[in-house]
């Protein structure tokens, strides 16, 4: 009767679960503790947090281990977990200017305000595969303390300088619309920009990068390479209102990656005397994602509706992955119905035209 036969479905499922647990949890190697994962697979953990839309390193690490390193599956575990949790508060608005930088580069300027801080990166290191025999020998060196200035840890953003020079299109209206909550309401076009930014912030990284690249080289592409104003990774404070005093209180910090992309406007109706600015921000350290996001933010503003639908509806990893996974479910009822129509077409004896079908079905 096959894999969905009338008997035995449950037994097979339970056996598959046992098999996974055994192979994963009882592999003949040392256990990977949560700290192991957060310390050694920092970027995978950050990616899971970003795509899950829930910031908590240990939770992401648990999920990463349970998913055997599949970041999308891990993000799914985290999101399903989040569905069981109440919302305790909405934070006070975070001003990204408060970011304490761990890394910050300004490609558009040689010597911007504040440092060109490389931080923890292997961007400039040859991609040579290292194959250590065992744990590297301990490194006892402790760097000597260095005095820190606020301008170094919270440098003024590069775009602030451009704004002073009146080189930026000004999108500030002074209005403060309520931000769209994509976790509580479905975002469909037309939607406010806050919905698009939120969708991108928790998008699947590969989908976002792929979409960006498709816009560069794809048949329907309409964006060009931008200049990056600034890329940062750092810590931002999270504040809520103190229930007794009503004043903001910082309950901790979270790490995020931020990008500002400068678009050289060249459209017929655009202001060629100025640049436009695209913005990207995501949880954790994920530069590829925040750069793609910043590029797509400005592209969405410029090229509008069709890109908006793509950004709102197609870049979520759980959506796309889930729909793809569902193809593995049995479809013999629908397939039987399709076969029935194939046979019906043959019996009509009408001439069958080989033209584009109008309207395709999704099942």
């Amino acid at each position, binding site marked *: 009767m096959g894999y969905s036969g009338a008997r035995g479905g449950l037994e097979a499922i339970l056996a598959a679960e046992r098999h996974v647990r055994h192979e994963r949890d009882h592999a003949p190697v040392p256990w990977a503790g949560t700290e192991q994962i957060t310390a050694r697979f920092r970027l995978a953990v950050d990616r899971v947090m970003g795509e899950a839309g829930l910031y908590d390193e240990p939770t992401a690490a648990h999920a990463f281990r349970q998913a055997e390193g599949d970041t999308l599956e891990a993000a799914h575990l985290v999101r399903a977990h989040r569905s069981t949790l109440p919302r305790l508060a909405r934070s006070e608005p975070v001003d990204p200017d408060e970011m304490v930088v761990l890394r910050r580069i300004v490609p558009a300027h040689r010597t911007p305000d504040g440092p060109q801080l490389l931080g923890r990166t292997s961007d400039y290191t040859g991609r040579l595969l290292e194959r250590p025999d065992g744990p590297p020998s301990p490194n006892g060196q402790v760097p000597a*303390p260095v005095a*820190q200035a606020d301008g170094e840890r919270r440098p003024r953003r590069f775009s602030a300088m451009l704004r002073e020079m009146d080189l930026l299109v000004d999108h*500030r209206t002074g209005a403060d619309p309520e*931000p769209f909550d994509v976790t509580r309401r479905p975002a469909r076009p037309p939607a406010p920009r806050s919905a698009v930014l*939120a969708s991108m912030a928790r998008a699947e990284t590969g989908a976002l990068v792929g979409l960006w690249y498709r816009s560069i080289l794809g048949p329907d592409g309409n964006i060009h390479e931008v200049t990056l104003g600034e890329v940062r990774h750092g810590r931002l404070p999270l504040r809520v209102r*103190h229930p*007794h005093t009503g004043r903001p209180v910082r309950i901790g910090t979270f790490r995020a990656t931020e990008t500002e992309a400068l678009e050289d406007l060249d459209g017929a109706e655009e202001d060629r005397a100025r640049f436009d600015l695209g913005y990207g921000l995501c*949880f954790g350290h994920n530069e590829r994602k925040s750069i793609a996001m910043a590029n797509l*933010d400005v592209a969405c503003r410029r090229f509008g509706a069709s890109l908006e639908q793509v950004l709102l509806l197609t870049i979520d990893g759980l959506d796309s992955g889930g729909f793809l996974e569902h193809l593995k479910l049995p479809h013999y009822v629908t397939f039987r119905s399709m076969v029935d129509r194939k046979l019906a077409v043959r019996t009509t004896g009408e001439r069958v035209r080989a033209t584009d079908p109008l309207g395709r079905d999704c099942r």
Partner: protein
Amino acid sequence: MQPEERAELLALAERAELVELADRSLADGADLRVVVAPEVGCVATQVVEPVARERFLLGDVLACRAEVELDGVRGWSMRLGDDRAAVLAAAVCDAEANAGRPLAGAVAELCRRVAARSAAAEAAEWAALAPTVVAFEELA
């Protein structure tokens, strides 16, 4: 010390030191009522993006909170993560300080320790990062 500052520092304190201090606080048989049971949930994070200066929701941050009443005086705590013991203990410590109970000084002392630790960590972090700053050598 302002309640906000205390809350910020207690949110950064370690679980062990909080539980230890809270246990000592409760040891005198003070009347404790849990107003809000330690609860894990999310804080929706609003960010003001700098292009249009409009808010958007970046995502949720996992957090927990608790509120207690110690001898009729409220104590509250909220911290990142899901350590419910730590947040309950911190709420007790906060109440202890608010009520001016015997261990209020110890709570203040804990806060000072946490502040110092945090400053030291940031200094060490910068010591490791500072050498990665690109120093352009200006040629005359």
